[in-house]
C-alpha cells in the first residue's frame, strides 16, 4: 500500500495525545450539586500519573480514530507492478487512436502516432496488444489475434507500420463508441481461453479529447471492471478555431426569375470554440461575386448573421471562413435541394367529378418548391407497364381491379412500395387476396344506426400516421364516415389494424404484400362515404403514404460526413423502359463510385464536399459537410469524464511500479489509481464508526464513576 500524500502521516504522532491523557488525567469531570459551599474550600486539582492505563479499549479507539483520520488524509491506495511492463504474466493493452477530423490540426496526428509508438515500444513479449482507431465508429487496425500472429520481436514494428499507413478521417468524434469498441475487444479476448495472460487490462487513448467528442454511448453501459484507462492527450498550439454553418435553405426564395442577380438572404452561423483568442472572422462565398462579411464572435459564443446569396446560382457552392488558427473546418458546402417528383396514379373510373375520389386526390397534392406532383389516372382493368409503374410513388386503387392490372400492381408491391386500396364496395375486398397472393378479406356493407361512424383506436406507430401522434393532432373523431364496409377480422391474416370505427370494425389496416404493403381503407373519402377529404388529416395522411411508399425522408436537409444519403426516386436504381441506367456518384475528390441498379442509399460520404449523382437525367448535387461538433476543439473538461466514471485509472485493478520521483506521468498515474480506488472513503467510514463507538463507551464509563460518587455521597 502506498500513500498519495504521505506528509499527512505526520499526524500519526498525535496518537500520543490520548495515551498521555489516559495516563495523566484529572480525576473528575462530573459536577456534583451541593446545598452550600460555605464550609468548603477549593482543593488543588489533582492529576494522577498512573503507570496503569485505565479504559484500554477506549484508548485504543481514540488512537485508532487518529490513525484513520491521518490515513484518510494521506490518501492510501494499493500498488502493484505496472501493467505491460511486468516480466511475468503479460497483460492486455488496447491502443485507441483518434482519427477524427480534428486530429488534422497542426501536428496532432503525428504526435498521437508518436505516443502510440512509444507505448508499443514498452510492451513485453507476454503482452497482448490491439490497435484500434475511432472517429464516428471504432475500427480495428490490429487485433489481439493479429498481434500474437506476428513474431514477438516484430510485433511493435508491425503495429507501428500499420499506424503509419493511417490518416485522420473527416468524420466526427464519438469517443464513447471508441471506448466501447476497445472494451469489447478486451472482453472478446478475455473470452478466448487460448490467450494465457494476466487479468489486468489497459486502454490507452491517444486523442485530442476535444469538447465536441460524443460520449452518449457510454451512458447506456458501464465501463468494465478491471480495465484501466489512460489518457495520452495531444494538444494543438493554436487555440482559436471557428466554424461556419448554413442554417437556412439558400434556395428558399420563391423568385421565379432565373436571373442570377436575384439575391436571397442566407442565415449563417459562425461558432468560435471555447478558449479561442481571436474574435474577428471573415465569411465569404467562394467564387466570383462573393462579398466578404466580417464579424466578431467572442470565444465560446455563436453568432447568426444574414449573408447575401444568389437565389439561382450554381447547384453547389462553398462558403469560406478565415481568421482562426485551424482551417480543417473552414469550408461549408451548400447544394441546391433537389426537386422531388411525386407521381401518384389513381386506378378508378371516376373522372374529375367532385363526387368522386380523384377530384380530392388531385387537390391533396399541390405543387411546391421541392415537390412536383403528377397525379395520373387509369382504368382498373388496364394492364400497366411495370417499368413505368416503378417510377410511381403511390397507387390509389378505388375500383374492383381487372385481371390485367393485377400483375403490374403485384410487381409494384414487390419493389417494396405501397398501394392504397379503398374498399368502395364489399366486392373490392376480394382484390386484397389478388394483390397479396394470400388469403383475402371478406367485408359487408355496414349499417350505421347513428347515421355515421367515427374513428377510434388510432395506431400512430405506422409511419403514415406518426405525424398525428402529437396530442394536438391526434383527434380523428371529428371526421364522420357515412358509409363503411365491415371487414371480417377472422379473415385478416397478418394484417395490422391502424384505426377502427367506433363499432369496433377495422377502418384502416395494412396487409403485407411481397416486399411492400397494402394500405386498406374500409371507407373512401369521397362525399358519399365520408368527410375525410374535408378533414385537415387528409393531406398529411396521403403525403405520409407517399413518403413511406417511396422511402423519402423529408426531415434531413443537410448531410454530414458518414451520413447515409437517400437517393431520389428519379435517380434511384429503377428502370425507365430503355434498360438499366448507369448511375454513379462523383465525389469531391473527383473519384466516381458506380451505383448498383437497386441502390437507394449512398453511404460513401467520407469527406466533406459536393457530391454529384450522374445518371441519364439531370445530375443531382448534394452537399456533405463536417459535423459541427468537430469544430468544438477546446479540451474536454475533466469533470465530463469524471461524471461518466472515466477518470484516469478507472478500473483500478491494474498494477503499477513504484513511482519514480519527478516523473509527472507516474504521479498522474498514481493519482488516477488512487482516484479509482478511493480507499479514503473507507477510512472515513471507519473513523465514523470508531467515533460513535468511542462516544457510547465514554458515556457508559462516565456514568459509572458518577453513580459511584452518588452512592458514596448517599452512604
Amino acid at each position, binding site marked *: 500500500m502506498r500513500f498519495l500524500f504521505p506528509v499527512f502521516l505526520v499526524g500519526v504522532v498525535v496518537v500520543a495525545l490520548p495515551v498521555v491523557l489516559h495516563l495523566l488525567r484529572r480525576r473528575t469531570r462530573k*459536577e456534583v450539586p*451541593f*446545598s*452550600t459551599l*460555605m464550609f*468548603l*474550600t477549593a482543593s488543588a486539582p489533582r492529576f494522577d500519573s498512573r503507570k496503569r492505563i485505565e479504559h484500554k479499549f477506549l484508548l485504543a479507539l481514540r488512537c485508532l480514530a487518529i490513525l484513520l483520520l491521518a490515513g484518510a488524509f494521506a490518501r492510501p491506495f494499493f500498488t502493484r507492478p505496472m501493467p505491460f511492463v511486468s516480466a511475468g504474466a503479460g497483460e492486455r493493452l488496447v491502443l485507441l487512436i483518434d482519427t477524427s477530423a480534428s486530429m488534422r490540426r497542426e501536428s496532432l496526428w503525428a504526435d498521437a502516432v508518436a505516443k502510440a509508438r512509444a507505448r508499443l515500444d514498452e510492451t513485453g513479449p507476454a503482452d497482448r496488444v490491439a490497435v484500434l482507431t475511432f472517429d464516428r465508429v471504432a475500427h480495428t487496425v490490429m487485433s489481439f489475434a493479429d498481434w500474437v500472429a506476428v513474431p514477438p520481436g516484430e510485433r511493435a514494428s508491425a503495429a507501428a507500420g500499420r499506424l503509419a499507413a493511417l490518416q485522420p478521417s473527416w468524420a466526427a468524434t464519438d469517443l464513447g463508441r471508441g471506448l466501447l469498441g476497445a472494451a469489447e475487444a478486451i472482453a472478446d479476448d478475455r473470452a478466448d481461453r487460448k490467450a494465457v495472460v494476466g487479468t489486468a487490462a489497459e486502454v490507452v487513448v491517444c486523442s485530442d479529447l476535444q469538447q465536441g467528442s460524443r460520449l452518449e454511448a457510454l451512458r447506456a453501459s458501464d465501463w468494465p471492471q478491471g480495465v484501466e484507462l489512460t489518457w495520452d492527450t495531444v494538444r494543438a498550439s493554436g487555440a482559436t478555431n471557428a466554424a461556419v454553418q448554413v442554417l437556412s435553405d439558400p434556395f428558399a426564395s420563391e423568385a421565379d426569375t432565373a436571373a442570377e442577380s436575384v439575391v436571397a438572404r442566407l442565415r449563417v452561423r459562425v461558432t468560435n470554440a471555447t478558449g479561442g483568442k481571436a474574435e474577428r472572422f471573415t465569411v465569404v462565398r467562394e467564387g466570383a461575386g462573393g462579398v466578404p462579411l466580417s464579424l466578431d464572435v467572442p470565444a465560446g459564443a455563436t453568432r447568426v448573421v444574414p449573408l447575401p446569396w444568389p437565389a439561382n446560382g450554381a447547384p453547389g457552392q462553398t462558403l469560406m471562413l478565415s481568421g482562426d488558427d485551424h482551417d480543417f473546418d473552414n469550408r461549408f458546402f451548400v447544394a441546391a435541394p433537389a426537386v422531388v417528383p411525386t407521381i401518384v396514379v389513381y386506378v378508378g373510373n371516376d373522372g374529375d367529378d367532385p363526387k368522386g375520389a380523384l377530384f380530392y386526390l388531385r387537390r391533396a397534392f399541390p405543387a411546391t418548391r421541392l415537390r412536383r406532383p403528377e397525379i395520373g389516372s387509369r382504368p382498373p382493368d388496364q394492364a400497366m407497364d411495370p417499368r413505368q409503374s416503378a417510377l410511381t410513388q403511390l397507387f390509389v386503387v378505388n375500383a374492383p381491379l381487372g385481371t390485367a392490372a393485377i400483375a403490374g400492381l403485384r410487381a409494384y408491391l414487390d419493389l417494396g412500395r405501397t398501394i392504397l386500396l379503398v374498399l368502395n364496395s364489399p366486392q373490392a375486398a376480394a382484390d386484397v387476396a389478388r394483390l397479396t397472393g394470400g388469403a383475402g378479406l371478406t367485408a359487408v356493407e355496414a349499417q350505421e344506426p347513428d347515421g355515421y361512424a367515427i374513428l377510434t383506436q388510432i395506431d400512430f406507430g405506422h409511419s403514415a400516421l406518426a405525424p398525428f401522434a402529437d396530442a394536438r393532432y391526434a383527434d380523428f373523431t371529428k371526421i364522420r364516415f357515412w358509409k363503411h364496409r365491415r371487414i371480417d377480422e377472422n379473415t385478416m391474416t397478418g394484417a395490422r389494424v391502424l384505426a377502427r370505427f367506433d363499432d369496433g370494425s377495422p377502418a384502416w389496416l395494412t396487409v403485407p404484400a411481397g416486399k411492400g404493403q397494402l394500405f386498406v381503407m374500409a371507407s373512401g373519402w369521397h362525399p358519399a362515404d365520408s368527410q375525410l377529404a374535408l378533414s385537415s388529416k387528409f393531406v398529411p395522411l396521403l403525403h405520409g403514404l407517399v413518403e413511406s411508399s417511396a422511402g423519402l425522408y423529408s426531415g434531413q436537409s443537410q448531410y454530414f460526413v458518414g451520413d447515409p444519403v437517400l437517393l431520389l426516386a428519379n435517380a434511384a436504381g429503377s428502370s425507365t423502359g430503355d434498360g438499366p441506367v448507369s448511375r454513379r456518384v462523383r465525389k469531391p475528390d473527383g473519384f466516381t463510385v458506380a451505383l448498383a441498379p437497386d441502390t437507394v442509399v449512398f453511404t460513401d460520404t467520407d469527406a466533406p464536399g459536393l457530391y454529384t449523382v450522374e445518371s441519364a437525367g439531370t445530375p443531382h448535387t448534394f452537399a456533405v459537410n463536417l459535423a459541427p461538433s468537430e469544430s468544438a476543439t477546446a479540451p474536454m473538461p475533466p469533470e465530463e469524464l469524471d461524471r461518466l466514471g472515466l477518470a484516469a485509472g478507472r478500473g483500478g485493478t491494474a498494477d503499477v511500479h513504484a513511482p519514480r520521483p519527478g516523473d509527472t506521468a507516474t504521479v498522474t498515474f498514481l493519482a488516477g489509481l488512487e482516484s479509482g480506488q478511493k480507499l479514503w472513503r473507507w477510512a472515513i467510514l471507519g473513523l465514523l464508526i470508531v467515533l460513535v463507538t468511542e462516544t457510547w463507551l465514554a458515556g457508559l464509563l462516565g456514568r459509572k464513576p458518577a453513580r459511584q460518587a452518588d452512592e458514596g*455521597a448517599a452512604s
Partner: protein
Amino acid sequence: MAVTRTQAASMSTAGGRGLIDPVALMKIRSLELRARLVVEGFLRGLHRSPYHGFSVEFTEYRAYAPGDDIRFVDWRLYARTDRHYIKKFEDETNLRCHLLVDHSRSMAYGSRGYTKATYAATLAATLAQFLFGQGDAVGVVTFADRLGEYLPARNRPGHLRRLFLTLERAPDGQATNLDKPMAAVAGLLRRRGMVVLVSDLLAPLASLDRHLGALRAFGHEVVLFQILDPAELTFSFEAPALFRDLESGRNLFIDPGAVRARYQAGLTAHLDAIRGFCRRLGIAHHLVPTDQPIESALLAFLGERGRKGGKGLRGAR
C-alpha cells in the same frame, strides 16, 4: 396546645413502634396525604387524652345592647337581676401557630431520593395537620432571601388545604438570607403565638439571634427545626468532583477526602452557634436529619412542649 409530661414520655418511647420510613413516605405525591398519614398513625399510638376538649369557655358578662344575638342572653341572670346580660365566651382557639418554612435553593438538595424541601414541607404539613386537628390556628410564611408567601393563622374549613398548597410549592428563592425575612416576620406576627421555623439554616447567621430574640420578646414561643441531609452532616463523598453551590451556582473543585475534616469542623461550629443562641433565648432547637422519620421530629417537638409544661394536648382523639 401542650402535652403532659407523662404523655410526652409515652410518646418518646413510641419511636420504635413502626414509624414510617421517610423514603417510603416521600414517594406519596400528595402532601396532604403524607401529613394525614403521619398524624393519624401518630395519634393511633397515643393514649386517649383525659382532657375532653371544651373550647366554649365563659369569660365575662356584658350588658345587652340592641342588635346582640338574643341566643347569648343569660336568662338565669335576667331572672335574678332583671337585667339583660350577654355571656361572652373564650375564643375557640387559644394558640396561633405560624410555620416559617425555608424555600431557598439549598433546600432543593437531597441525597436520598427526596429533597430537604420535601421533607420540610412534610414536617410543616404534619405539624399543621396536628395543630389544626386540635382546633389551633395555623399560618404559614415561606421565605428565602426575602419573604415569600404569607398565610395568616386561621382555623377555618378549607384553610388547611390552602396551607398545604403553599407548602407544596417548590423552592424558588435564591440564597438563604435569614436576616431580612426574620425582620419582616417579627413585624408581621404581632399577636402572641407560636413560631415554628423550618430551615436548614445553612447561611451566615449574622443577626438571626437578634431577630429570634425579638420574636421571643413579643411573647412568641419559637421552635426551630433544622433540616439537614445526612450527606451534609457527614460529607460522605469519596471521589473528587466539581461541587456546584445550589444557591450561588459557584463551582468548586473539591477533594472530599482532603476537606472532610475541615467541613465537619465548620458545620459543628455553625450548629454550636445555633444551639448556643437557642439555649440563650429559650428556643427549642431540633436538628432533624432527613433520614429520620417525621414522627420522631413530632415526638421530639411534643416532648419538648411537655417538658415546658404547656397547656397540654387537647383534642387528641
